[in-house]
């Protein structure tokens, strides 16, 4: 713009696609009151369109195109509903892979992991000693649950920190590997067999770039049970 002459600048201005104002301009006190009718009627009409018709149309299309996802990606095992692929579950028994710590509360406010109708995280700050103590406890429990892990094995950070939703369905590959000795022992399988199963359940990054490689705990555990049956 710096080098354009005044005349070309004026030409540029006249070619603005917006165009100039139309002849009639509303102003003054009378016009204030005239805004009331559109305020009320457009609120109602647009609520009908965007607040009712839009979600209904989306629901119709979603149920037709992607019925499984639209109803919560529910998972059945032997014909029985066992959970949602996307919603993590609480696991305690040694023969199953365990998910990440969960800081959810039940509706009465008591800490209850993986409450799927009350998602949330700990919101503990980085210098809060309550957080550091909690992590220490999780480390102690983890070590107790996994006595066969060789001493000095690094503790994967996702196994001792609470997820954001409290419903994280995934663990890292390192977190799955960490639990292999326990699972193999509890199930009488070779560590190699369990490791192969883990490797078969790794989901990579999107386009090799976005997000993190991960293992879905419910799917892995269902596959473990399958392995036992065959």
């Amino acid at each position, binding site marked *: 713009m710096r080098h354009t002459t005044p005349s070309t600048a*004026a030409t540029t201005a006249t070619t603005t696609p917006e165009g100039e104002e139309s002849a009639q301009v509303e102003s003054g006190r009378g016009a204030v009151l005239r805004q009331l009718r*559109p305020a009320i009627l457009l609120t109602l009409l647009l609520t009908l369109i965007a607040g009712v018709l*839009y979600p209904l149309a989306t*629901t119709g299309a979603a149920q037709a195109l992607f019925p499984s996802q639209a109803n919560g990606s529910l998972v059945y095992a032997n014909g029985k509903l066992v959970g949602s692929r996307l919603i993590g579950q609480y696991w305690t028994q040694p023969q199953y892979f365990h998910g990440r710590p969960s800081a959810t509360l039940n509706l009465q406010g008591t800490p209850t992991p993986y409450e799927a109708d009350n*998602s949330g995280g700990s*919101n503990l700050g980085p210098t809060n000693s309550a957080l550091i103590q909690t992590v220490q406890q999780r*480390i102690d429990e983890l070590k107790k649950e996994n006595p066969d892990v060789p001493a000095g094995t690094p503790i994967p950070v996702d196994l001792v920190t609470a997820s954001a939703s409290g419903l994280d369905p995934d663990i890292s590959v390192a977190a799955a590997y960490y639990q292999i000795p326990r699972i193999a022992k509890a199930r009488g399988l070779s560590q190699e067999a369990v490791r192969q199963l883990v490797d078969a359940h790794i989901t990579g990054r999107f386009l090799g770039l976005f997000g993190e490689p991960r293992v879905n705990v419910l799917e892995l555990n269902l596959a473990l049970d399958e392995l036992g049956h065959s």
Partner: protein
Amino acid sequence: MSFTFNGVAQIIVYFLLLLLITKPLGLYLTAVFSGRRTWLSPVLRPVERVLYKVSGVDEHKEQDWKIYAVAMLSFTAATVLLLYAIERLQDVLPLNPADMGKVDPLLAFNTAVSFSTNTNWQNYAGETTMSYLTQMAGLAFHNFASAAVGVALAVAVIRGLTRRSGRALGNFWVDLTRCFLYILLPICFVYALFLVWQGAPQNFNAYTHVMGIQGFAQTIAQGPVASQEAIKLFGTNGGGFFNANSAHPFENPTPFSNLVEMLSIFALGAALIYMFGKMAGNTKQGWALFGAVSVLFLLSAFVALGAEQAGNPAFARLGVNQTATEWSLAQPGGNMEGKELRFGIASSTLFATITTDASCGAINSWHDSYTPIGGMAPLVNIGLGEVVFGGVGSGLYGLIVFAILAVFIAGLMVGRTPEYLGKKIEQYEMKMAALAILILPLSILGFSALGVVLKPGVTAIANPGPHGLSEVLYAFTSMTGNNGSAFAGLGTTTIGTASFAFYNWTGAFAMLIGRFAFVVPVMALAGSLVRKKVAPVGPGTFPTATPLFSGLLIGVIVIVGALTFFPAYALGPIVEHLLMLAGKSF
């Protein structure tokens, strides 16, 4: 600070994708708000006509800035009342399979204000408080409405700057309706279906009761999630269907959905900047603004990534491995408290940067659990006025105010009357710009001071030490900035407590001030500018379509933000960072 190749690459590729969508979407917006035919016109034009006819809008009449503002305020007031009524009556209205009771009156008021101001600060958990009808016809509708209002205001301000002369800024009702019909609804419909494909539910089922393999019962919340999620992000609203917001696997199931969610937060803000250049008759004017905010965006994204990837030294002392295993699949490392595994560090911190650069406020990780510097990045982003692409509409008119301030400062340097796009910036314009810019810190620092002095403000603090100050400061920064994200440990949600009353009342006022006390001076500014004749470009004109101007603009944004808030940040996140490095905990 610690960086992985992958984390850096995520930021860069994301930015390139954003660049890719900016021009096409910007051209489409320009067509819509210039009243030109678009490829959707054959279907939508008849609907548009019916809406005008029934509601008594003459689409050929335009409004001066006062009537435009009155129309905007009366629409907002009507939508607030409707939402309040729906919340208070949800127990007797349909679509309530989880049997939610009436929403508490103060909470209902705060939520109505929060959603109508595009803030979406939530003093409740969606899945335990709101019926499906309230979610879709109340809250999701407001996500559309507040976004469309923001876009309409931005379009009006652009007209103020780019029209050669006149009195009118356009017709609010036409801008509003066109934004709903041509932009928000069709894009959200497709977007919502994409989210369902990725795993977001879209149903009206009752919550599903499940018995897990180990015998633990689980109640899985359901609902029309995807349709609300789409506009929540595309309209930079940020109010989650569920408490965990975009960290919830049903709101944001995969890294792919996360990428699209991040793009959709910036999409309209970036496209509006392009439209600004187009309407000004010189797209370089838009790209100069785009360049300035891109620098600020990238800086913040790298700071947040570096801080979170470095992890928490207290965890390291306990023997936790926070090192990312970069070239194998093993683990994301970093500070994973309050983060989802599928997003790891990079996709979480990038989301946190974007959601606070824009006035979105959706979260896919809990900012309260970030390391001090990692959490300061989002706080600073909001404090800068959310002009880095910004909220839909609000980002652009905020940025224009800063641009006017920048040309004013440049004018002072060379001793000439400053001009922006040929419009002379004089005393009245500077008064309005300064008023708008000063109102935000007044509300943020004023209310934060109250919060850390009054007992109900202090008792809500969840994390001890300097982090507690950060919680209160973040709350009022977020509410005034109409962001809606939180250091969410702050206990503002227990109905009946003094803290609940304090934060719901002060918060509602902070949100109203942040939206309307900012918008009205900006509208007055636009109303004054539209009357001015465009002065021809002369040798003394400071060019505003150059990298030099971009640099000056960055300087003005940072200096205004830094001078205003630095003392408060020093006492919160900065001192916490130093104490964390020294091994202190509280």
